[in-house]
């Protein structure tokens, strides 16, 4: 198990918070909460060691398409593939938009 | 065999209770000046259920315990119930699962819990193994848990070999982890650190109690009965409070605040 931290430039914090996923095999849990304007903080606790670069690239690709809202994101990962991670994050952002 | 030895020693001269499976030893005796019911699960080589011949708690034992405790409740005198615990495991078998061993064990837990709620002081005396489902059915509903301090006395959810396999570790890795994670450990001192025991006692001969051993244990049981009667508390809150079980208290506090 490894704990990783990431930071990205962001816009304004959203009003609401969201939870998606579950710490089940091949899945992950994502908690999204309003952060400080301008900053997106991500903390990842993952069962897969040595994957920091992969997380970094995945987040970079995701956030270069569109500036994310200012959030504190906590991820509990149980071996999710990049595709599943991306899907869960998109779900999380969408749920934030609903509130 | 500690269970049978301690049952015999504590219940010497007591009236045995009939009408129960041979794997149960039940007797109405006296502790101090108080009438009490002693209950033990013991090996029965002739048990009709082959997977329950070595002291395991199986179908007959679960329902039999329920009956033995129900009879004590029916007496209406709130007599203390002393569960002498030396149970290596629940019975693992096809007949057991098919015939609902979970329901038989629920019967036993139900009766012990109702006895406690009805004001019977219920005490579990751990003189050997107190494993998993077997302990849940026979002893874990007691107001007070008392353990003898001996390497043969242990409380656990699963035997070492099985636990290692299920958690994908070697027995050595499991033991190393257990040394640093108190709830995973197999020794009685680690268990005591969880705050679940009311008392631990040292005896000189756990397999064949001496007169001194018997006197010490009897005295402790009498104290426990008084403690329960004086407290007036019929639930299990007395088990909370240890540092190694702090989350159990914290969760309850938060639930109460948010209820």
């Amino acid at each position, binding site marked *: 198990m490894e704990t990783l931290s990431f930071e990205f430039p962001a816009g304004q914090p959203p009003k609401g918070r969201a939870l998606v996923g579950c710490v089940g095999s091949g899945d992950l849990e994502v908690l999204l909460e309003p952060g400080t304007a301008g900053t997106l903080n991500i903390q990842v606790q993952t069962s897969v060691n040595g994957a920091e670069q992969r997380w970094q690239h995945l987040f970079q690709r995701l956030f270069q398409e569109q500036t994310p809202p200012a959030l504190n994101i906590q991820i509990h990962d149980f071996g999710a593939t990049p595709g599943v991670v991306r899907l869960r994050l998109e779900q999380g952002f969408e749920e934030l938009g609903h509130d | 065999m500690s269970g049978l030895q301690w049952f015999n020693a504590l219940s010497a001269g007591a009236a045995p209770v009939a009408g129960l499976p041979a794997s149960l030893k039940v007797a109405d005796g006296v502790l101090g000046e108080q009438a009490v019911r002693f209950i033990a699960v013991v090996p029965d080589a002739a048990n009709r259920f082959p997977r329950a011949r070595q002291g395991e708690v199986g179908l007959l034992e679960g329902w039999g315990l329920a009956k033995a405790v129900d009879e004590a409740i029916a007496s209406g005198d709130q007599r203390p119930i002393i569960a002498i615990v030396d149970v290596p495991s629940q019975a693992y078998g096809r007949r057991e699962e098919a015939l609902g061993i*979970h329901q038989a064990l629920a019967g036993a837990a139900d*009766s012990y819990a109702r006895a406690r709620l009805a004001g019977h002081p219920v005490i579990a005396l751990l003189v050997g193994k107190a494993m998993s489902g077997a302990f849940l059915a026979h002893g874990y509903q007691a107001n007070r848990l008392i353990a003898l301090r001996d390497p043969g006395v242990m409380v656990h959810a699963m035997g070492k070999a099985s636990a290692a396999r299920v958690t994908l570790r070697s027995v050595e890795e499991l033991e190393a982890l257990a040394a640093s994670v108190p709830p995973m450990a197999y020794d009685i001192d680690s268990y005591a650190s969880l705050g679940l025991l009311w008392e631990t006692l040292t005896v000189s001969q756990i397999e064949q109690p001496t007169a001194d051993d018997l006197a010490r244990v009897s005295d402790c049981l009498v104290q426990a009965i008084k403690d329960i009667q004086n407290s007036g508390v019929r639930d299990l809150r007395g088990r909370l409070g240890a540092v190694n079980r702090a989350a159990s208290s914290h969760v309850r506090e938060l639930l109460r605040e948010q209820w």
Partner: protein
Amino acid sequence: MTDLLNRHSFVELGARQRAKALLDAGSYRELIDPFQRVMSPWLSRQGVVPQADDGVVIAKGTLDGLPVVIAAIEGNFQGGSLGEVGGAKIAGALELAAEDNRNGIPTRAVLLLETGGVRLQEANLGLAAIADIHAAIVDLRQYQPVIGVVAGSVGCFGGMSIAAGLCSYLLVTREARLGLNGPQVIEQEAGLEEYDSRDRPFIWSLTGGEQRFNSGLADRYVADDVAQIRQQISELLQQGLPATQRSRQADYYLARLAELDAAPQIEPATVRDLYQGERS
């Protein structure tokens, strides 16, 4: 077929969604929600990734107007195993529900059981929490029904199968399995001939929801459909306490077991005949 198409699977829902699906619209209120991050103090130090709610959802609300607390176990997190925090959430909620009743508030409880039992990484604290859950069910059950639901797909095993046996009513689906010992543990302890853990039809024939219902070890057998499960739970809640609690029938079960020829290995039909007699 139209019936099938109109169904909404309950089994496929996570613990939180299940609790939401059962409670009256707008009445759902979660206690110790995941954002409070009351997580297992034992998993991380063993290198196991925790979950923010420790795999247990406690929600208060109403079900067809009746006050209920739901405890839902997330079967996808660590096999629904109970550790210190998740176990204390369930026990504590049941304890408060009993206290409610002593104070004149008729809170009922519904337990959504998808669990392998004790979480071995927290072994003795899981076991202790399950003993607390047993104690609290027996206490609450004096006032109001405690309803157990085993929907699947994990099933209900270990110490929590005893909790299921203590419930006032038990509701199962075809996907449900209910048994004390998991198939692999039995095979390991007793051998392949005794119990083949890979033979799924065999396991379901002995411990599946349909067999448990037909043997009188469950009270309702329901399709995997949110509306039907909700309806059945509601009916059981309205019904109040059962005339006889299944776990209080020691004399009945001892008499049945005395009639059994225990020598041959057992068949599912034998259990149905033995326990149901005239009803089968």
